[in-house]
């Protein structure tokens, strides 16, 4: 089996799967008593429904036959009425093209043919051009974020798989592709930008070619530029990591300078907190101290075209988790010696595994190889779930 094909397959599946973001899903509820699978309501008829179905079908047939007869009567009487001979046919377009007389008659009651309308709209357009002022600049506003782009730019709908339903805006310079995306990540930081790094094959992932800290409206932003190994320059991203998280994404290739300028001049909402409400990445270490568990966490980053491994220590941050905090995880994707099936994966297991370092001698995966989703409010931080494992760690 060709290793390159395997890598390509893995990368393609990963890219497609990562288009599904939590924000894009319908609001989900765990099943409750009485919930019925979507297709089942059709299959499971009650005794009465089973009896009623044939009767209903028979009644429908009778109604259809009766209705059809009535319609036939009506149309017959219409044809018999000479006053209706001028009534337009149901499909006037073809006949209008072919019959000038008919067209002239129909102009009384139908919209003008295309040519006429086209001419009049052209003249309106040219007269408007003569007196109009240049179009104003475009200002995009997304819950506290405001970005102004030059005249001629317009806002279009973001591609469905990127919108996260409501939290992504898209601006275009030519009306076709999104040159700038703006998203807020505070509903779910994984939407579009934060996700699992993958082991990259030849085309498996984008790579980071530039990282720096920028300032937007007085707030720190992480700037990244990416290169897709198979297609060349991919895009650049400005990420405001504090709460509320903001992401600007620009596919490289056109309007690079315009977008950079617009993002640098953007206004942002006030910082609500320094720990994001939700974050995804890798816990690099956990140590227990008297004031709580000290956690070093490294954020993972994703692009619209797929996730990328986040090299270096660009997105590392540290925080303290109160001792009483409950880590809600079953460790199902992370095999720890001593872990019993079904056991709740508590903090002591995390601490124990962390102490084994980057190369556990017992053959288990290194602690930092487990991707987690962190959740926090103003008081505490918790691991919501463990996700994929990433052999070799990050």
């Amino acid at each position: 089996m060709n290793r390159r094909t395997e890598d390509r397959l893995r990368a393609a599946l990963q890219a497609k799967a990562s288009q599904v973001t939590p924000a894009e899903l319908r609001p989900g509820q765990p099943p409750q008593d009485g919930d019925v699978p979507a297709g089942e309501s059709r299959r499971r008829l009650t005794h009465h429904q089973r009896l009623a179905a044939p009767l209903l079908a028979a009644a429908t047939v009778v109604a259809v036959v009766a209705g059809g007869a009535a319609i036939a009567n009506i149309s017959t009487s219409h044809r018999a009425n000479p006053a209706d001979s001028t009534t337009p046919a149901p499909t006037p377009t073809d006949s209008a093209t072919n019959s000038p007389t008919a067209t002239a008659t129909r102009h009384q009651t139908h919209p003008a043919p295309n040519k006429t309308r086209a001419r009049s709209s052209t003249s309106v357009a040219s007269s408007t051009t003569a007196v109009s002022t240049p179009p104003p600049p475009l200002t995009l506003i997304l819950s506290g974020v405001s970005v102004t782009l030059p005249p001629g730019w317009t806002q279009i709908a973001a591609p469905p798989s990127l919108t996260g339903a409501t939290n992504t805006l898209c601006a275009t310079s030519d009306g076709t592709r999104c040159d700038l995306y703006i998203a807020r990540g505070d509903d779910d930081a994984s939407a579009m930008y934060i996700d699992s790094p993958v082991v990259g094959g030849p085309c498996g992932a984008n790579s980071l070619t530039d990282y720096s800290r920028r300032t937007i409206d007085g707030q720190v932003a992480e700037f990244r530029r990416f290169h897709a190994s198979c297609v060349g320059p991919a895009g650049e991203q400005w990420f405001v990591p504090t709460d509320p998280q903001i992401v600007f994404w620009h596919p490289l290739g056109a309007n690079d300078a315009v977008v950079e300028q617009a993002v640098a001049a953007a206004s942002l909402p006030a910082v609500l907190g320094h720990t994001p409400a939700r974050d995804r990445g890798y816990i690099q270490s956990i140590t227990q101290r008297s004031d709580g568990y000290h956690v070093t966490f490294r954020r993972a980053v994703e692009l619209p075209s797929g996730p990328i491994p986040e090299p270096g220590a660009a997105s590392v941050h540290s925080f303290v988790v109160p001792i009483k905090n409950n880590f809600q995880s079953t460790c199902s994707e992370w095999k720890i010696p001593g872990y019993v099936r079904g056991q709740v994966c508590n903090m002591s297991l995390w601490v124990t595994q962390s102490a084994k370092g980057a190369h556990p001698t017992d053959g288990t995966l290194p602690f930092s190889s487990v991707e987690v989703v962190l959740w926090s409010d103003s008081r505490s931080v918790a691991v919501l779930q463990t996700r994929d494992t990433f052999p070799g760690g990050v």
Partner: protein
Amino acid sequence: MDVARVNVSALYAAHRVRLVRMAVLLVDDLGSAEDVVQDAFIGLHRNQEKVRDPEAALGYLRTAVVNGARSMLRRRQTVRKHLRRVQPMAEAAPDSELLLAEEHREVLAAVRTLPPGQQEVLVLRYWSDLSEADIAQALGISRGAVKSQASRGMDKLEKILEGTR
């Protein structure tokens, strides 16, 4: 030792998105994938007395998602057959794939040409990273069948991709 009983809500919070991603790879559209996964959780909820171990529950969910995806595809195929009588349909890539790199689109298009069984094995192996045993359990086939399906699928994929170069 605190041995937890299967908690469907916790499993839902932890695995719903991942299962939807897996289902999307099998059925190609997000709405259907979400339905398939929701039905799988409803099935688990109904049977939680029988499935007490969270790991077994995850296996149950995977199997239910694969089965649900198969049913969905079967229903879709039936509908398409009827539609074709009226208007022939081209097997186009889903819209969402237009946003992927050309490289990925090419591979996914090639995967779609494989028989359903091979597609399932490749998705579970190369995306879900399941072991042969887990794939066999999820698909209800033997480990030998998993091996042969994977091998045939990869061979075919390789040939298709070489042909497009």
